[in-house]
């Protein structure tokens, strides 16, 4: 507890911006906790960390923490983060998004950021719904689920965010849950340290807007669902297709070394200088 109090005092804008906007039991607080523990463990200076978000419940996350914080427009967090990182590659730029934010309105930016491979960390909190606006279906709402804009049932098919990031070319992709909080600390830490574009999809719960309407219970029941349905990547090899049918993998899905944009761009600058000098 003393440890927690220390972190609260060190990182939260505790005297300025509370109470927060999130519902009791929301997974966002767990993600924020993991993020703070990861950054604290890495020992980064607060001045060197930039936390960028889009719009939605997840978008409010940066306001509570004492870093350089940037709450951008809906879906565009990665574009702002791209500018920040390119202008000052020494900053640790971490982007927080929701499922609708990152894969619907921001879907194009997401795949291109993965392809471009800047040294950015993207944390996507996936609660399968648009929570802040009241429970409309998102790109990760499962087929057949109910939402305020799918009151008869949802007839579209969901994105798998982590797999999308793998295909788009991200250097590191991981998936965790807010139930497996200790593991989430480590995944986020690994993603921040990873050189290149890293993605952590965090399976979270919106019992208020998604769980309630789909009779999945409250926060506790939804966390239990995460516990029962998550399988560590390492264990999938020994599991049959049937066993895996109703489950999702957690852990590091991909970790590969790719040329980093800012490193490559240094070579472009050298080439440009050489060409200009020759022209003179």
């Amino acid at each position, binding site marked *: 507890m003393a440890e927690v109090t220390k972190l609260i005092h060190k990182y939260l804008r505790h005297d*300025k*911006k509370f109470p927060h906007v999130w519902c009791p039991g929301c997974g966002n607080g767990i993600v924020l906790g993991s993020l703070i523990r990861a950054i604290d463990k890495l020992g980064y200076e*607060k*001045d*060197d960390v*930039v936390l*960028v978000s889009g719009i939605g419940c997840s978008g409010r996350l*940066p*306001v509570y923490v*004492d*870093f*350089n*914080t*940037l*709450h*951008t*427009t809906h879906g*565009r967090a*990665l*574009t*702002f*983060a*791209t*500018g*920040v*990182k*390119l*202008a*000052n590659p*020494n*900053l640790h730029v971490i982007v927080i998004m929701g499922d609708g934010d990152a894969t619907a309105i921001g879907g*194009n*930016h997401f795949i*291109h950021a993965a392809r471009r491979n800047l040294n950015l960390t993207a944390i996507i909190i996936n609660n399968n719904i648009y929570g802040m606006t009241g429970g409309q279906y998102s790109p990760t709402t499962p087929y057949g689920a109910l939402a305020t804009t799918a009151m008869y049932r949802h007839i579209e098919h969901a994105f798998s965010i982590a797999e999308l990031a793998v295909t788009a070319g991200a250097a590191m992709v991981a998936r965790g849950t807010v139930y497996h909080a200790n593991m989430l600390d480590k995944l986020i830490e690994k993603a921040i340290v990873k050189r290149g574009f890293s993605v952590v999809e965090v399976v979270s719960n919106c019992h208020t807007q998604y769980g309630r309407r789909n009779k999945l219970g409250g926060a506790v029941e939804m966390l239990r669902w995460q516990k029962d349905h998550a399988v560590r990547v390492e264990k999938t090899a020994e599991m049959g297709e049937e066993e895996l049918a109703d489950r999702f993998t957690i852990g590091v899905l991909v970790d590969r070394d790719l040329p980093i944009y800012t490193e490559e*761009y240094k070579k*472009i*600058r050298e*080439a*440009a*200088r050489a*060409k*200009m000098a020759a022209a003179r």
Partner: protein
Amino acid sequence: MNEQATTGRQVLLQGNEAMVEGALAAGCTFFAGYPITPATEISEVMSVKLPAVGGTFVQMEDEIASMGAIIGASLAGAKSMTATSGPGFSLMQENLGFACVAEVPCVVVNVMRGGPSTGLPTNVSQADVMQARWGTHGDHPIIVLAVSTTKECFDITVKAFNLAEKYRTPVIILSDEVVGHTREKISLPHPGEIEVIDRIRPNMPPEWYVPYEDNSRGVPPMGIFGDGYRYHVTGLVHDVRGFPTQRPDEIVPFLNRIHRKISQHFFDILMVDEELTEDAEILVVAYGSVARSARRAVREARERGVKAGMMQLITLWPFPRQILEPYLSRVKAVLVPELNMGQVSREVKRINQGATRVETINRIDGNLITPEEILVRLIKM
């Protein structure tokens, strides 16, 4: 115009190329863009020249991303710019509003082409004057400048960066297809001859820094990411510390201040180029490529004994009302030629309030208004 003699380097440049030179002279180190006719040359030349001076060029996935990237870069301390045309400019509007509200300096070039929609991609137009003013939602302050020559493409781009930095605001430059693609010989001034203004940075201890606190200028000093002044940047209406607020006693002063910081500096921001206006009986008000035709028509009209005068608007928004107004009670008529269905003339009429006669020449066929068209009208008037 091009007549002033300088000792600088003589070059033959397109308007679009001259904008790149102006941006570099002003200290631009970051450019994000997306290909679009007739603005693409700005991206192309930037991609060659920026890395050579240690800057960064990036081609983004669309214009929304370009606008987001230049805001991010500016928050991290770079002087940043993007360039586009009508359709791309439409896509930039949401993030442009963010830059207004979060008070992030940046320069947005719109090389205007025929609209609406995909319109006339390779033809000239001036139909984005109102979009430049009101394109993003909500009441917001904005500075919009219009260029008519290659020389102005250089000079006004420098000026745009200076105004952006000075007032912590996006500055839009309206160029057009004719200006962007016309090649002219200009003298590029030496670096020492150019006034370059940088944003005012905080110098108090970080714990005393109140990022959006009002002052006599209405422009708070700007901390940049990584310099020790950690603060919150948001598109939500915020209090003086940058945190979201819904309190009326914080909303109103904030919105008033961001408007006041532009309005109280009118005379620093308003730029017009007057010729033969002192004794003019007919005042021609024009901007952009049309100002070139208008200037020649005014000179030729004088030769024919018509007392015409030329007022070229360089600042379009805030509208140079303070400069134009005294003429309206003095001249017999005003003529506003422009390549749209009457966007600046509408503003002139609004200010005029019946004081004088306002006539227009409007051309929307993708071609420039010729000096002859204006001259014929001046003689008739």
